[in-house]
């Protein structure tokens, strides 16, 4: 599409228009997905509590989220007189923006990615670390006790869990040999016999569990929702917010949860690949597999929210620093040690890598050597599946 626009509108402007359209093609369905996932969350939660959940607006209550959206849109925006006005308004916008920009590097299907950058994973880590600013700024700018407590909790909580998330990502990168998300997905093709996904690897499966739990802590979902624990902090950093600024926090939060579910799918469960490397399964478009995986992990998030009681703050810190950090550090040693023992180093100064043509030959070497194999024709079994 970019080429077509560049041909008709000139190189620079055509690129601009094409990118703008692609961004809208991601952002608008994402908004719709967030609205529906809020509905799904409430339905799942209600079903586990033997309630009916939203069931009045529209068939099966499907339009509930839109009714709620309309309601908050029509409400009055209240800015407390003691608040720091500029920052008070910026905070929800920041949260919402950060929740959206992470999707720029997520591959939805084979080649269906807005920005196929080779530091994709680092970009996602950077974006997820920015998410804390919306909460901190909101808590501070509200000039109120409970939001401020919430902001301090959020700062400590998100920084703590980012450390173990970093180690989890390092072990994934070691095994895939690239930071590019499409490359990481390709590396998972028939990773364990005929199964697509790093999570089927016994060495990486514990890391996928740590990642999922850390993702819950990063997005401050229950049972780690100490930043908005209503029994202690009213509504945490959202206490002073009303109307659309409140809705932006709400949307941003669910957007982040979806992004974390997507990251779990991309990093450990093969992204848009079907779970089993079997040709008929490739007839289903990759984007459907990806959405199905996102929804599966969202169901796990809801399930945990409905069943697990909230952590105490010292327990949260203990889990992050005394359990996840040492375990993930040990696992980085195990993964890198296993790779060192079983794979050969990239030979320097020879043409050995240039002669590698198939996957089985490439598997002899360290995963990171793949970028030096110009004649590797891609995943050979993938080519077979597309024919």
């Amino acid at each position: 599409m970019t080429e077509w626009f560049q041909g008709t509108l000139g190189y620079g402007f055509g690129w601009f228009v094409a990118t703008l359209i692609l961004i809208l093609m991601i952002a608008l369905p994402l908004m719709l997905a967030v609205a529906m996932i809020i509905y799904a969350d409430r339905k799942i939660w209600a079903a586990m509590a033997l309630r009916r959940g939203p069931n009045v607006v529209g068939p099966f209550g499907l339009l509930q989220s839109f009714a709620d959206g309309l309601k908050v849109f029509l409400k009055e925006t209240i800015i407390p007189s003691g608040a720091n006005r500029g920052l008070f308004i910026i905070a929800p916008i920041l949260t919402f923006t950060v929740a959206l920009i992470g999707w720029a590097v997520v591959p939805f299907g084979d080649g269906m990615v807005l920005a196929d950058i080779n530091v994709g994973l680092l970009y996602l880590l950077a974006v997820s670390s920015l998410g804390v600013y919306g909460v901190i700024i909101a808590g501070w700018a509200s000039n109120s006790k409970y939001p401020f407590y919430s902001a301090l909790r959020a700062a400590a909580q998100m920084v703590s869990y980012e450390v173990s998330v970093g180690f989890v990502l390092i072990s994934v990168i070691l095994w895939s040999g690239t930071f590019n998300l499409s490359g990481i997905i390709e590396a998972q093709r028939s990773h364990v016999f005929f199964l697509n996904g790093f999570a089927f690897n016994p060495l990486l499966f514990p890391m996928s569990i740590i990642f999922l739990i850390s993702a819950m802590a990063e997005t401050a979902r229950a049972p780690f929702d100490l930043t908005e624990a209503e029994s202690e902090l009213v509504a945490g950093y959202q206490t002073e917010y009303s109307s659309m600024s409140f809705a932006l926090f709400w949307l941003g939060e669910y957007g982040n949860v979806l992004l974390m579910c997507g990251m779990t799918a991309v990093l450990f469960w093969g992204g848009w690949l079907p779970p089993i490397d079997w040709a008929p399964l490739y007839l289903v478009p990759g984007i459907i597999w990806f959405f199905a995986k996102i929804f599966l992990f969202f169901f796990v998030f809801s399930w945990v929210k409905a069943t697990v009681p909230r952590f105490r703050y010292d327990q949260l810190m203990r889990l992050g620093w005394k359990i996840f950090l040492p375990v993930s550090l040990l696992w980085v040693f195990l993964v890198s040690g296993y790779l060192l023992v079983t794979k050969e180093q990239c030979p320097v100064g020879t043409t050995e890598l240039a002669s590698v043509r198939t996957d089985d030959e490439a598997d002899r070497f360290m995963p990171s050597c793949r970028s030096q194999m110009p004649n590797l024709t891609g995943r050979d079994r993938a080519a077979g599946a597309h024919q």
Partner: protein
Amino acid sequence: MIQAFAFYLFAAIVIASGVMTIGARNPVHSVLWLILAFFNAAGLFLILGAEFIAMLLVIVYVGAVAVLFLFVVMMLDIDFAELRSGIARYWPFASILALILLAEIVFAVMAWNAGTVVAAKASPAAQGVPNIELLGRALYGRYLYIFEAAGLVLLVAMIGAIVLTHRRRSDLRPQNVSHQVRRRPEDAVVNMNPGVGQGVEL
């Protein structure tokens, strides 16, 4: 054209937010301007083609260091009147420092114009190879010992910081999870059958 526009945009915001960092009256605003400066500096690195360093700048400085700054600054109890009263006392010293810095910058620019010590400027990157890999090869190949030594220095600094600030408190009773999990009803509950008017002896 677009590169020049992006460069001037990022550079202007870096300088403006740098000025606001020292000019803002509220320390929290200062930290937020500093974060904006970091962020746009990352943009400048991106234009240079150093995407790995750009991302690291955001992850390390914006994502971790600045959060801790903000954390500390938000909790500080700062008396602005007292801070400003010091200006009269310190400005001669401060202006000497500023002059020295200015002289150093001028000197550095002159030296740079005269030609670098290294004979040829290295090309930034080979085409098609991600610069993470190039950086990795340089750090873990040619500069391995220096890199490991830097890591060791950081480790010592970290241990030092923990040793200096850690204090044992005797008045705390921390939670022992394995102890709680190991506890069985038999350890906690005793069935007694006291006689009438005697009460229980534990």
